[in-house]
């Protein structure tokens, strides 16, 4: 793997960071949505919702940065991936519509609360599944001719993408459950830990399945995971993932605070690193590298200035907002 550090590489890492931030941050929001039906109607649901109400909007903004950043830094990739996965993207957007408004509507309309709770779950599930399937569709390869998507509009639907979709749903559920272990106490926390264990097993099995499938999906992917010298770069990823997995399962049995959540985050980090190893240097496998799709240097520099100035501020005030709402969610919610 030849890694030149140029502007395009820096931008690839910035987009990857935005996607990772989105996946873990909105991941626990969506995960709580996915798990919502298992919570008791009443205080338990209210507290689960209250634990993310002040932060979900900021979390979702990372999705706009991922999409907008891709548009700005790799316009050709944006222009190819979105038409290729058109039904998935539309489904995700509509799922996010239902999920987002449910935060407000369920408090406004007690008579129909169960419908908005269902919209919250349905929207979260559809969005998570669609995101995972979009990732799968990207990894399995997108046909590009003449700077344009050249496949048909159901190419994305394969057993592989169903597997990546389910893996994402399970992973988000894990993040959501471990977040609730951190933010809740008493009976609800016990419930969240039980859910966390199940979600952890499901995530690990599906992650393993996707990893194995990757090796058979594409000869080039297999080469970089299974042959020297690439294997020396690649091998630490699965090894560390396994270590994290063991620690996570142990923590879910004993810890009552944030540790399972941080370990789930680490699991996602190494999953993402594995994706990086698999895809590099392609932004749209099998044909477009990040350099093929990159915006010109002037665009990259202009935006890099903006990122360098704003990103530390964004991280600072986002951290502050989380700090304001720290601690266990009390019974009476926010006043």
């Amino acid at each position, binding site marked *: 793997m030849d890694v030149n550090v140029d502007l395009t590489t820096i931008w690839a890492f910035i987009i990857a960071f935005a996607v990772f931030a989105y996946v873990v941050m909105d991941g626990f929001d969506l995960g709580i949505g996915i798990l919502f039906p298992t919570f008791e109607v009443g205080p338990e649901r209210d507290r689960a919702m209250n634990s993310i109400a002040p932060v979900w909007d900021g979390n979702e903004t990372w999705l706009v940065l991922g999409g907008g950043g891709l548009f700005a830094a790799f316009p050709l990739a944006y222009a190819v991936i979105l038409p290729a996965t058109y*039904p998935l993207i539309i489904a995700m957007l509509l799922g996010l519509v239902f999920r987002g408004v449910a935060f407000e509507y369920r408090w406004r309309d007690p008579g129909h609360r169960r419908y908005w709770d269902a919209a919250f779950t349905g929207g979260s599930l559809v969005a998570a599944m669609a995101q995972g399937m979009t990732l799968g569709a990207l990894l399995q390869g997108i046909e590009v001719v003449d700077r344009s998507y050249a496949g048909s509009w159901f190419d994305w639907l394969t057993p592989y993408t169903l597997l990546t979709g389910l893996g994402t749903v399970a992973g988000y559920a894990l993040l959501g459950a471990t977040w609730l272990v951190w933010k809740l106490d008493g009976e609800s926390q016990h419930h969240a830990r039980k859910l966390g264990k199940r979600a952890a097993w499901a995530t690990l099995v599906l992650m393993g399945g996707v990893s194995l499938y990757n090796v058979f999906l594409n000869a080039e992917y297999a080469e970089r995971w299974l042959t020297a010298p690439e294997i020396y770069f690649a091998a630490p990823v699965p090894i560390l993932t396994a270590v994290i997995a063991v620690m996570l399962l142990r923590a879910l049995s004993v810890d009552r605070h944030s540790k399972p959540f941080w370990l789930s985050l680490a699991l996602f980090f190494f999953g993402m690193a594995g994706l990086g190893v698999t895809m590099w240097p392609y932004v749209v496998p099998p044909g477009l590298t990040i350099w093929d799709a990159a915006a010109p240097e002037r*665009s990259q520099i202009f935006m890099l200035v903006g990122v360098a100035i704003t990103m530390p501020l964004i991280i600072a005030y986002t951290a502050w907002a989380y700090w304001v709402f720290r601690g266990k969610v009390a019974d009476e919610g926010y006043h």
Partner: protein
Amino acid sequence: MFEQLDALLLARIQFAFTVSFHFIFPAFSIGLASYLAVLEGLWLKTGKAIYLDLFKYWLKIFAIAFAMGVVSGIVMSYQFGTNWSVFSDIAGPVIGPLMAYEVLTAFFLEAGFLGVMLFGMNKVGKKLHFAATLMVAVGTFISAFWILSVNSWMQTPVGYEIGANGQYLPGESWWDIVFNPSFPYRLVHTVIAAYLTTAFVVGGVGAWHLLKDRTNLHARKMFSMAMWMAAIVAPIQIFAGDMHGLNTLEHQPQKVMAMEGHFESHPDGAPLILFGIPNSEEKRVDYAIEIPKASSLILKHDLDAPLAGLDTIPDDEEPPVGIVFWSFRIMVGIGFAMLGIGAWSLFARFRKRLYEWPMLHRAALVMAPSGFVAVIAGWITTEVGRQPYVIYNLLRTADAASPLDAPAVAASLLAFVVVYFAVFGAGVWYILHLMHKPPHAGEHGVKRGDTGPIRTAGITPGPSQNPDDPDTLPRDHEEATDGR
């Protein structure tokens, strides 16, 4: 129903539908965020509880409007790629960075501080809370700045180079791109429009409650504030709109020709067509009521100045005249009606009848949604008026679409229509429900966690109250009756 429609037309309908729906919410939340900042600032400065009550009253409405704006906005940020991929590829190097700046400088700011603004009053203290409110208000403005810069660049593209691969690439100066010729005018006109839209909503709600109880001090305060806004800002908006129109004449003449209904050139003074029915096939305006030479006076400040008409433009570069002609008149008509309400309110204030003139209150109530109609009509004027181009004189809309099959776009359009009407219909209903409740002392903010059994029973009538003195009301008045 969709058999005869091709993928391009469907994609255009989908974009028009989703962007029109989306813009309703920011048109309201840009103004409302600033109004909330003003109310909280006045509360901190004067210590008067009435400002805090009004802040909390409108905060609940803002929370719903903002959520609808966010979810419909995310759709827009992806729709460039899903449905207009050729445009995204070609124009991405120029407009992509501007949109990335919108995310970095506006969306994160709004979203990051929104949680504190909605739920954090008792956690961070008054001053930090006010800072959070200000950040949200500033964020809405910065968002408008960048996205209007993008739109304006597509109307008046400058500062670009054409790359070997056909992409438009940024030239040497980003300043030229960001501050392209139509941007300052469009920014001022649009932001003022958002303020006016909000002022008329606030004024309409105040008027509604004054009609029911003209002694309600909270209703009086919001009505008075809104009418000051209308009286001061409506004339400014008409002036700004005129400047914007002159800028359009300079850079996009055929848009103005369509707005004016000028099919023919007028070498010695063009008439101002007040009404009429544009007949594109015969290239004339039927049943026109016109003022001779007035159009030249407005556009050129000279009665006899020549004005070119659509006869100077090749047929395949003309925008659809009928839509532009009518939407422009709707916008202008509403603008002057707003001016009229503002003037009436000044007269009422002078006569000391601002709170005792039911006709004025009814008129303000009727005008409550007028801002939304005006901004949508204005956008239709400018967006349809630049057709057939998506990037003016450079890229035709017909050449910009994604390679999608018509059934795919038909299905997504249908899904958007069904979901938007259901979801945003419900949201608007909830907002109207909140507006229906009279503002009162001891208003509570956005609260979560009605875990007790009391507040699950729906709406129950409140205890009797003395409306002349809101401070006599118990502080937890609405907590017992809110019903959430």
